[in-house]
Structures are given as structure tokens and as C-alpha cells.
């Protein structure tokens, strides 16, 4: 595969766009990945799922 830097930029842009278009109410809540469902206790163990949800939420906030 011949990658140019431009194709890397395109791929990054498409991935970020894909994360940004995940709708909060219609989709994420239905699969249990909403932002108010994941933040469990104030413990020290975030776990992968809550880290991912945090990441999705921050990407969506930045891209808004």
C-alpha cells in the first residue's frame, strides 16, 4: 500500500468525522454508551469502556 501523507490526513479526517457523527440520544444511549451512563464511581479504575466513552464525548465536544 502506498500511503502518502495526504492519504493519512484524509483517513484521520474521516475517522474523526465518524466519531463526531455518533448521535448522543438516538444511538449511544441505546447501546449503553451514553455519557451519563458510564461515569461510575469516583474510583481509580476507569476501565476501557469508560475511557472510550470519555474519548468519544471529548471528540464530539471539540468537533462541535
Amino acid at each position: 500500500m502506498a500511503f502518502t501523507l495526504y492519504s493519512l490526513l484524509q483517513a484521520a479526517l474521516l475517522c474523526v468525522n465518524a466519531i463526531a457523527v455518533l448521535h448522543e440520544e438516538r444511538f449511544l444511549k441505546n447501546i449503553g454508551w451514553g455519557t451519563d451512563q458510564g461515569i461510575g464511581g469516583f474510583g481509580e479504575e476507569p476501565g476501557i469502556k469508560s475511557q472510550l466513552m470519555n474519548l468519544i464525548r471529548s471528540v464530539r465536544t471539540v468537533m462541535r
Partner: protein
Amino acid sequence: MISIHIHAAARRASGSGSVAAMAYHSGYGAHGSKHRARAAAEPPPLFDDTSGGYSSQPGGYPAPGAEVAFNVNHFLGDPMANVALAYGSSIASQGKDMVHKELHRFVSVNKLKYFFAVDTTYVAKKLGLLVFPYTHQSWEVQYSRDVPLPPRQDLNAPDLYIPTMAFITYVLLAGMALGIQKRGQSEPPPAADGGELPICGRRFSPEVLGLCASTALVWVVMEVLALLLGVYLAAARSDLSTLHLLAYSGYKYVGMILSVLTGLLFGSDGYYVALAWTSSALMYFIVRSLRTAAPVPDSLGGPAPRQHLQLYMTLGAAAFQPLIIYWLTSHLVR
């Protein structure tokens, strides 16, 4: 010299071209004769040496011959040329300052300098360690008062010099390998395989070199991003910054170079043997280094699942390396 002093004053004042021109022009009439006399005695500078200390002569310019010096002297005796000279060099210094400022916004230059503080013995030992890491005992990075020691004093510290040089050497070696290939081998089989040939498998031409370089760079960037994502998801509070990860993922280029060289010298079998050897050495090296670098002991201690996660991430990163090495070099040693 007079030109340098006036130029320094203009640069310190406001740096704009008109001020320099005016300052120089006003100063020129008074010192005109002295300037000419002095310029005839030593070779006149074609551009001012504006970097730092002004004590050094503009000495990069050797005097070619008497008549050439005199012609240049006559040319530089023209006041407009001198004004243009001062203006141009002030613009150049402005550009340099602007570039430094922009660069400083993205990359902290001090942190970058830490990674390049290497010397010859460190590089030699590190290369030996990359090829044969099995006998090395202590893998901890040493600190001195909470600051990690630079690579000059600590063999386990990561550096960016070796990866950078190895990357450049890999690109040049890829070009050479493509040029060495026989004609029958290097032309892609005409629609015989459905798969896509990596573009570095074509015959050599200058744009193939650039494509090869950018492909390898893109793989490095993707790997660093994946590692960053892995470190973030595992929520490991360690001192593995982006540049550390860049350094560790750049070490595989040494393995690639060795594999390609062995493949060129000893044929396809030598290539596979070298590939296996360098892959296992690199995997061992990365696993040992990252296991001591990643978990920073905090007061609460790391809970068990997080350590498992970190271990999986490390093993995944290590297992990814041979695949990349094979993918980026197999077409060169066909």
C-alpha cells in the same frame, strides 16, 4: 565591522527594513571612505553573519583572488547594494525568529534536545543492544533528582538519533535495493496476482524513493497514534510521552536495515534468517523496556486489571513490529 554594528542596532530597534535602510544610509556617508579602505584590506562579506556572537569575523568566505575581491569590493561599494544587503539580512533574521516561534508552539525544543544528547559509545552500545538484548541485566531508566538522565549517561534511555538516522538509511537502502534488482524481477507481474503490489516494488525512479519514504513515515505515525491510544485506554500514568513512543517505534528501522542488507548479500534465505533474528531481538527489547518504563509507582498502587491491560498493550505493540518489518522490506529482497 561597521556594517555589523549598524545592522545589530537596527535589528534590536525594530527590525523593519526601512529603519535598517535609513540607519545604514545615514551611517554610510560618514564612514564611506573608511569602509572602502577597510573592505579593500579583507574579503568583504557577501552576507552578514547574524547568528549570535559578533566577535567572529565573517570568515566562511575565503578570498578567491585579488581581482575578484576587487570586483566584489566595487560592487559592494555601491550604497544601494549595501542597503539591500542589510535589508535582506534583517528579513532573514526575522524569518528565522518567526520559524523558531512557530516551531516552539508545536514541539518543545528542550524535550527534543534531550533525545538527541547522544555520543558515539552510547550509539554503539545501543545498536549492539538492539541486535542482542538477551544478556542485558538492568533495564531501568536512571533518574537524577526526578529528571531522567540523558542518553549520554544512561544506556536504557530512549533517544531519537538512532531512529532518525535509521529511517534515512532505510530510505536510501530501499532506493539502492530497487536499483540493484534485475529487470525481470522488478517489473510487476502483469495482472497475474489480484493483490496490490506495494508501490516500493517498482523499478527505481526518484519519485519511488519519495513514495517509499512517505509510506514508511505514515506507518510510523499510525503506529505512534495506535500506541498513544493504547496508553490512554489503559490509563497508565507513566512518563511515556509521545516522543518516547516515537523513539521506541523508530528502533525497528535498525532491524529493517539489517534484514535488507543480509537479504541483499545472502539472498532470500539470509533475509528470512535475519528477519527472524532481528524481530525476536526487537520484541524482547521492547517488552523489557516498556515493562519497566510504563508503570510509575503511585501511592495507591496499580490495581490488577490495569496491569494486565498494560501487558496486553505492550505485547500487542511488540507483536506488531515483525509484521511491519516484513511488510516494508519484503518487496526489496525478492
